[in-house]
């Protein structure tokens, strides 16, 4: 095993650092009378209790915090999020003023390079999906799902059927953002259960759709690596009922260059540029949910849309049927530069190779992982090779040893392995975990990941307390059992913390890491 230990700085909270009078940044003096320009009743009286630090102190504090962050310094195979290499060429370019110092309301003539890049990315994604138009306003995959729910409203409203069509159909295996955004947009959610073969039955779908169906929101393959071979019939069924079909392409990596959303009949799809297309994760954004749709739906897209007129590009704001906006401006531009850079570096052959490698490496992982004591996979009776992910279970290990998947996350991190993804709610297997190899990791990286898991399984059987009490090689130990959903305990700010620490009280509530581990940004 590789020896790993995180940096330990015992770094105090920034609120506890500094000395009165120190300055980290100074500005020119405004001269007399500036404060009086604020209306009399609105002048701040008590200064904010911010720390007072010099510039080098602030730099070193946050460099220490960066060193206490594992990120992708080790091997990270976080399933459903498709860990990607983020081209540092783009990292260099987005810091230049020609990107960083652009204002979204500049005249189009001054944004020609950017607009050409955005249009180029649009064309690339059209080529990949078969859709007719992409927009980038949504700030993440969930936001793109929301965009679809809102476009669904506009589409049915334009036909006078919205009051009647108030249901959106999805499956229990869809990412939670699909039912959640459908609900937030005002729809009722119909979630189909899974059958023995790993996906809901066509019969269940037929029973669920009706004149009330507004749309289907579905991913394929799912997070278990199972591809629904009847998906084209699903699309037909929903279309026959008058609903729209949205392809949540969160799990696109295994099918890039292998199929197109449009060819399967979908009306719209979404790619996460911070997953499949090389933009950084950044701990949860800034991100982009690229939303593409057919010509029929394009008139409803959020404005503005980048369009080409001859050899010029412009932001088209004049779209009378548009839903309006899901967010200000036209997208997280630096992430578009990353994605465009990644797409142009890869090309069609590169995408094809990436999906080949993703599926190949996943099947290699599966073979090795299933040789480890106590590791099983969901739906073991399905013999066809899984796509780019497989859903595994450590249920047997937990039953034998009492060691949980949360303990595994913590212990594997002791070897520099970033926490694996478990599963969205609801869990269909006990103690689930879902690695995704993708194309950026070498075989040696993946072997190391598997070796660490095997090692921790061995530890679980021989010295379970060692695993349960992990991590041991990090800056801090695991969280205690304080219930952070008890108002007496939670403190999202230092102010609240100081007040509640004085009051004490509160309750303990199981494993405080459990809630943490269920987030997949």
């Amino acid at each position, binding site marked *: 095993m590789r020896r790993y230990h995180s940096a330990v700085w015992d770094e105090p909270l920034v609120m506890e650092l500094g000395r009165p009078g120190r300055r980290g940044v100074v500005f020119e003096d405004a001269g007399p009378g500036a404060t009086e320009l604020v209306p009399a009743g609105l002048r701040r009286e008590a200064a904010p209790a911010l720390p007072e630090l010099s510039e080098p102190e602030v730099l070193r504090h946050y460099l220490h915090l960066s060193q206490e*962050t594992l990120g992708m310094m080790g091997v990270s195979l976080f399933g459903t999020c498709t860990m990607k290499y983020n081209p540092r060429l783009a990292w260099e370019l987005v810091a230049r003023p020609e990107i960083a110092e652009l204002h979204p309301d500049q005249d189009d003539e001054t944004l020609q390079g950017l607009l050409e890049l955005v249009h180029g990315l649009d064309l690339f994604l059209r080529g990949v999906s078969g859709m007719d138009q992409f927009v980038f306003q949504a700030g993440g995959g969930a936001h793109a799902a929301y965009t679809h729910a809102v476009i669904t409203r506009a589409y049915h409203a334009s036909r006078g059927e919205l009051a009647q069509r108030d249901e959106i159909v999805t499956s229990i295996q869809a990412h939670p953002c699909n039912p959640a955004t459908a609900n937030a947009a005002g729809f009722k959610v119909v979630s189909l259960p899974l059958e023995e073969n790993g996906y809901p039955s066509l019969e269940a779908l037929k029973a669920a759709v009706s004149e009330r169906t507004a749309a289907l929101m579905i991913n394929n393959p799912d997070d278990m690596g199972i591809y629904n071979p009847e998906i084209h019939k699903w699309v037909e069924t929903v279309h026959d009922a008058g609903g729209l079909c949205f392809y949540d392409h969160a799990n696109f990596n295994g099918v890039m260059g292998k199929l197109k959303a449009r060819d399967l009949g979908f009306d719209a799809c979404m790619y996460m540029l911070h997953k499949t297309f090389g933009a950084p994760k950044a701990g949860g954004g800034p991100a982009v949910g690229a939303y593409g749709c057919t010509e029929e739906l394009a008139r409803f897209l959020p404005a503005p849309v980048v369009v080409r007129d001859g050899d010029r590009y412009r932001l088209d704001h004049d779209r009378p049927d548009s839903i309006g906006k899901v967010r200000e401006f036209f997208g997280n531009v630096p992430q578009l530069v990353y994605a465009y850079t990644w797409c142009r*570096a890869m090309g069609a052959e590169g995408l094809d190779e990436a999906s080949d490698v993703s599926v190949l490496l996943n099947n290699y992982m599966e073979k090795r992982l299933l040789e480890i004591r106590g590791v099983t996979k969901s739906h073991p009776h399905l013999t066809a090779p899984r796509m780019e992910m497989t859903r595994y279970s450590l249920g047997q290990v937990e039953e034998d040893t009492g060691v949980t998947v949360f303990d595994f996350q913590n212990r594997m991190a002791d070897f520099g392995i970033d926490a694996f993804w478990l599963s969205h709610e609801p869990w269909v297997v006990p103690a689930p975990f879902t690695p995704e190899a993708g194309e950026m990791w070498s*075989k040696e990286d993946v072997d190391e990941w598997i070796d660490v898991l095997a090692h921790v399984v061995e530890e679980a059987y021989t010295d379970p307390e060692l695993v349960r009490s992990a991590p041991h090689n990090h800056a801090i130990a695991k969280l205690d059992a304080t219930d952070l959903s008890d108002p007496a305990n939670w403190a999202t700010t230092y102010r609240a913390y100081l007040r509640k620490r004085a009051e004490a009280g509160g309750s303990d509530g199981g494993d405080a890491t459990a809630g943490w581990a269920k987030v997949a940004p």
Partner: protein
Amino acid sequence: MTAHPYMPNSTPELHRELLDAIGAPDVESLFVQIPAEHRLQGGLDLPPALASEASLRRHLVGLLARNEDCERNLSFLGGGIWQHHVPAIVDEIARRSEFLTPVWGTPSSDLGRNQAWFEFASQLGELLALDFVGLPVYSWGCAEGHAIRMAARLTGRDQVLVPATISPERLAVIRTYCGSPELAGYIEVVLVDHDPETGGLDLNDLRTKLSPRTAAVLFENPGYLGTFEAAAAEIAALARANGSETIVGVDPISLGIVTPPGEYGADLVVGSIQPLGVHMSAGGGAGGFIASRDEERYAREYPTLNLSIGRTVNGEHGFGMALFEQTSYGSREEGNDWTGNSVYLHAVANAAYMALMGPEGFAEVGRLIIARAHEAARRLGELDGVRIRFPEGFFKEFVVDFSDTGRTVAEVNAGLRERGIFGGIDLSGYFPDLGQSALLCVTEVHAPEDLDRLVDALKEVLA
């Protein structure tokens, strides 16, 4: 093909090694789950790859060279994205690979990032004088949309009062978040007129429109047209007496010199985090926050991820998720709105920015911005035919009315652009009552000689 630099396994030898290990004849055999009729025929039609970084860089730098930016030009654009000074170390911190690459990690493995997030919320809480701050949302407009939905759930009511002068961008987002009348959960957006003298809310119109349906009164301080809401306390009192929540949008960079909104009765406070050390990036710098008093009633309605300080089994500081079960990750469609990727890297930049600024930095920058903006407005108002619509009580943005010059804003801005100046946002389309008016923004990045240049250029353009 040549091995691709981003893909370590893209060699024939490694394909063979992996295939042999699993006993598969070829890669194609691994795709049998996908029916043949679903498969793409003939490959993708995409532009040729530029796998050589040198070629790709040349292509991209060529594209970037076709942009005109606000560094080489002199810009007075604001209205939701603003040009502020970004200290150099903020850039270094936000660009560190450790902060750039994490997907999520564990409370211990990504401790440093989690602590930076807590320091974001803590320092913002000091600026706002509020105890509960969620992790950021996509933008100011999205924060307003969520806050309105929170208020509707809290009160069981279905209307929100919003200033008619709110940013058209933010209003469009709010309308989206408020839903459709045909469906469940619809919230009606009712616009409140503004006082043409002050730019603030017309209190008579507000009183008329407050009703038992009013879930919330939303206003901004300063508002889109740059003016402070001097009647803030009175508006909040009217809302409270009506059983409505008060939602206030703020520009956090003003809070070194401006009263934090909780002190005049705001219940939910929202705003942009972009002024706090995030580059404009053509709108890619947008980010928003939601904050309130730390009362359970409000906390239970947040749609954000909420990071709490906690303890480890060894008694160290650690950070965990509070109120996780109310998110869509915990409860799918039963959760509050939805939760997903947001703009969390900006929170790291914000934390470093606020730590650099300290109380005196915020006071100093606030004084400088308000003084420079007023100086600019005063000088522009001296030009023939140019009128400042709300000449007092604004922060960094102000409305310049060119109607009496006989020129449209479009004409004025075209003339300025020829002189390397980006004029203010043209308001004439959205706010015809303001005539040929532009919204100009002046901040700490503008030097006195920049104002000279603007005045001189305008004299030429208007001559």
